[in-house]
């Protein structure tokens, strides 16, 4: 009798364990076997890519080249750190610290082109945070890493307002990168950058620009890029076939779409007025989709996620563009939100001149508009931007130093230097001033809403 009771008890326990395991597998929480619940679509996706990542070793900084593996490793680790900060909720303003002293610490700085909410940065809700913090720069201070401690600093549009939190986390990739850039044998061949806020030109530049320390003896070497429209290089059926590979994903039934070839060279693809895609021979694709009637409001994270999901899946956007874009502006007009993206090549911004923007009819290289819960329109450049292959045209050299550039701008454009008018941006970017030809790296200055190319 006693044995019988023991057997029944053990059997009952095993049945309960089996049931628990089945429930966990099918309806469970964090299990990866849970295939009934749709996974969070933001998982693993970087919603807002930085325009530049800098390794700060004290007085000098080095740029992380966007094409290297370390770029994505760093971004993932940074996301992990911010998520940790959001979860513990202890992010407070640090009034004792100045931005200038921040750049004197060893660490890694992530620069964004616009101020975005911290939740958009990591793609999660604000959880325990009392307020949504606007972030334009993220600095991970590694000076206390030997104590297994990292300080996370968040800087908004106003560089005087710095938020800080301390986390006890292991971020090995950050540490390895910092060690690497502290090795003179490695940095010997790399271009060092001077943060303008700690430079001799501090009073002439608003906030901060990272200025390359190129000299005549050690110029800034870069790859020369070629710009061309691959669609216009084809004719007849080949051209239409290539274009169809770009636009077919917009239509429910691509075979039934209508094609209207205009005299000016533009081609319009449409499907029962539900979707219209227009190709302009200058080098753009534009689409409009009939908006969803159902009003489903999305929050900022969901909106950005929807836009990024669209970009990832859209076959009409060139792959190189998808890899190099970074968010530069969000514009709201009624219920419509337009997300504008710029493009960078190997860590250097690609700048479209006013002439090229007018020719292409775009403000930024990629623009996507979302209304309610649906991406409703967009326009982008389909121009190929790739390294030049012609012999002798592979590498360019930038000799002009930052001191000469700033002096030149002040001499030519600033009336009274004693007014201490500040230049808004002083940078090196690839400048695209024609839709077919070469693009070189050069200095670019933003002053009183005008771009100058000294």
């Amino acid at each position, binding site marked *: 009798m006693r044995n019988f009771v023991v057997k029944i008890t053990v059997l009952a326990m095993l049945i309960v364990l089996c049931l628990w395991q089945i429930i966990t597998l099918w309806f469970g929480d964090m299990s990866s076997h849970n295939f009934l619940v749709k996974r969070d679509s933001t998982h693993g996706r970087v919603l807002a890519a930085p325009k530049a990542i800098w390794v700060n070793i004290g*007085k000098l900084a080095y740029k992380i080249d966007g094409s290297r593996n370390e770029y994505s490793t760093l971004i993932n680790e940074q996301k992990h750190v911010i998520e940790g900060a959001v979860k513990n909720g202890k992010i407070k303003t640090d009034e004792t610290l100045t931005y200038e002293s921040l750049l004197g610490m060893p660490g890694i700085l992530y620069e964004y082109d616009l101020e975005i909410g911290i939740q958009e940065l990591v793609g999660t809700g604000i959880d325990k945070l009392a307020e949504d913090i606007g972030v334009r720069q993220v600095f991970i201070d590694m000076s206390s890493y*030997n104590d297994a401690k990292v300080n996370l600093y968040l800087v908004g549009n106003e560089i005087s307002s710095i938020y800080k939190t301390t986390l006890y986390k292991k971020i090995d990739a950050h540490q390895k990168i910092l060690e690497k850039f502290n090795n003179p044998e490695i940095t010997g061949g790399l271009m060092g950058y001077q943060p303008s806020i700690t430079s*001799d*030109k501090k009073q002439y530049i608003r906030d901060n620009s990272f200025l390359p320390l190129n000299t005549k003896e050690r110029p800034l070497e870069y790859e020369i890029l070629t710009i061309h429209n691959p669609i216009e290089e084809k004719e007849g059926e080949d051209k239409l076939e290539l274009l169809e590979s770009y636009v077919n994903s917009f239509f429910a039934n691509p075979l039934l779409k209508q094609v209207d070839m205009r005299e000016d060279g533009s081609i319009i693809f449409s499907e029962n007025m539900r979707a219209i895609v227009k190709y302009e021979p200058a080098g753009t694709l534009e689409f409009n989709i009939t908006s969803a009637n159902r009003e489903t409001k999305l929050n900022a994270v969901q909106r950005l996620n929807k836009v990024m999901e669209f970009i990832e899946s859209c076959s009409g956007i060139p792959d190189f563009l998808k890899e190099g874009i970074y968010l530069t502006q969000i514009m709201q007009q009624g219920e419509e939100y337009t997300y504008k993206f710029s493009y960078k090549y190997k860590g250097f911004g690609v700048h479209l001149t006013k002439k090229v923007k007018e020719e292409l009819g775009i403000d930024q290289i990629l623009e996507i508009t979302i209304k309610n819960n649906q991406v409703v329109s967009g326009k982008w450049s389909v121009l190929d931007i790739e390294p030049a292959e012609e012999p002798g045209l592979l590498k360019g050299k930038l000799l002009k*130093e*930052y001191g*000469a550039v700033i002096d030149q701008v002040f*001499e030519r454009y600033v009336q009274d230097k004693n007014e201490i008018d500040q230049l808004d941006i002083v940078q090196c970017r690839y400048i695209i001033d024609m839709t077919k030809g070469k693009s070189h790296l050069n200095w670019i200055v933003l002053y009183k809403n005008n771009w100058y190319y000294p």
Partner: protein
Amino acid sequence: MKRLKNLMLFLAFIGIGLFGSTVYATDVITTTSNVKVETVTKDDKKVEIIVSEDKYVRITQPTKVNTSTFESKMNVMGETSQGTEITIEVYNTSLDKKGISLVKNVTVYTVKTVGITETFNQFIELLEGENKIVLIYTNEKDKKNKEKMIFYVTRESEEKKEFIKTYNVFQDSKTPFK
């Protein structure tokens, strides 16, 4: 005659003893500086800068007459009047067994003529050991002709850097050696 010969020899030995270092005249660096450190107020903060004897040139980086660093490069930055022509000579030196500074390498940088912002910079390479920096400035209008500023930047060795790093780790961790 023999006495005279001995006297000459004696004087020659004394001469060598007294002025022996001048034998290496072209290689030796004297560790003297002719600059001053001043405290100035910038952005409501007191900062130190190096100024030339005539206060015509102010160096904002480095800020000490003798600076030590682990970095292999430095952006020398400063301020002076528009139109000043500047050359920077960097003498990398090391001490021999007798404690005499010997020049291992000399690099000369010609800085762009100082412009309207009245600031200048020059990115220089630092070799391990002492780097004597000689900044030569000329401005005809202000009657400055090849005036010199001398200051030093010592780049510490990689071994020392590693030692300090290890030392810090032991300092920070709870070891019985603490």
